[in-house]
């Protein structure tokens, strides 16, 4: 039994497990996607955002 078949049987075959897979994937995808794009945005604007200057003002 190949990997694809295993995955299909375990996750995609039944509607219940399929939906559960979708929900779980959404969670991890959203976390990684948001994290990486925010990191990229902060890199592009290094030194300009409040995050980068706030240590100068916080006691």
């Amino acid at each position: 039994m190949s990997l694809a078949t295993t995955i299909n049987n375990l996750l995609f075959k039944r509607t219940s497990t399929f939906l559960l897979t979708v929900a779980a994937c959404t969670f991890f995808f959203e976390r990684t996607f948001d994290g990486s794009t925010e990191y990229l945005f902060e890199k592009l604007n290094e030194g300009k955002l409040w995050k980068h200057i706030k240590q100068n003002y916080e006691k």
Partner: protein
Amino acid sequence: MAASVGRICGAKLLKRNTTNVITQISSFSTVREWAGNNRKLLTSLGIVAGGAGALIFALDQSVKASELELHAPEYPWSHSGYLASLDHASIRRGYEVYKNVCAACHSMRFMCYRNLVGVSHTEDEAKAEAAEVQVMDGPNELGEMFERPGKLSDHFPSPYPNEQAARAANNGAFPPDLTYIVSARHGAEDYIFSLLTGYCDAPAGVQLREGQYYNPYFTGGATSMAQAIYDEVIEYEDGTPAYASQLAKDICTFLKWAAEPEHDQRKQMLLKSFFMFSFLCIISFYYKRHKWTVLKSRKIEFRPKSKKC
């Protein structure tokens, strides 16, 4: 041409027609089928639409030609660019300039001290800023209004109680509220920067009345606002040299943020949506190809039965 004649006449040209020519021609016309009123309506509608379009075009052109003012050049702002955020250190300095210079005449009615938190000031600093002003509150148990130090939820104080008071104090001119001024002016922050730094002596032939100042960027040239931004008019707390151009740049950044507080969020969303929609485009492209393979790869052949001519 041949195509349109064919479309109007249909198959009639192909048929042999034995009736006389006059009825034949009238039957070709599609216009004949419209009632007389309909035709008049359509014609007048066309004339009205065309006239309105021409009028709008002419008005647009004439407005451009009649303005006698200098248009602001485009400056390289630190936040211009599709993914460039606002410079928050500049926003903080811009707030200092607003508080010490602009706030003498201009209100920012729609800004609260809480808006500064996490943007240019920490919560404690914003509280301290708010506590510096006295705010009218009440009524208390005795039904009296009283003054108290400001809180985070308070709006920036206005220098005048109402527009009439502002006009009376400023030679009849109303200093506009600055909250959304960047969005409200053509040229946005470029215009404001040029206006603040563009004061000069009136050229020969321009008459200024009492209390007016010449500024080529202001429509008409005569403004009631005196030059407010000079070198070292204030001292920055972070030690940045306070030249006039620096002051004007910082106040413009601050006003840009005030007018578009969602600016950084929006540009971050642009980055996210760029990646997300590229991903979705690839998927849709693949899905379409996948579903259309059957249609695209089949072959339909027309084999006529051989006719004996």
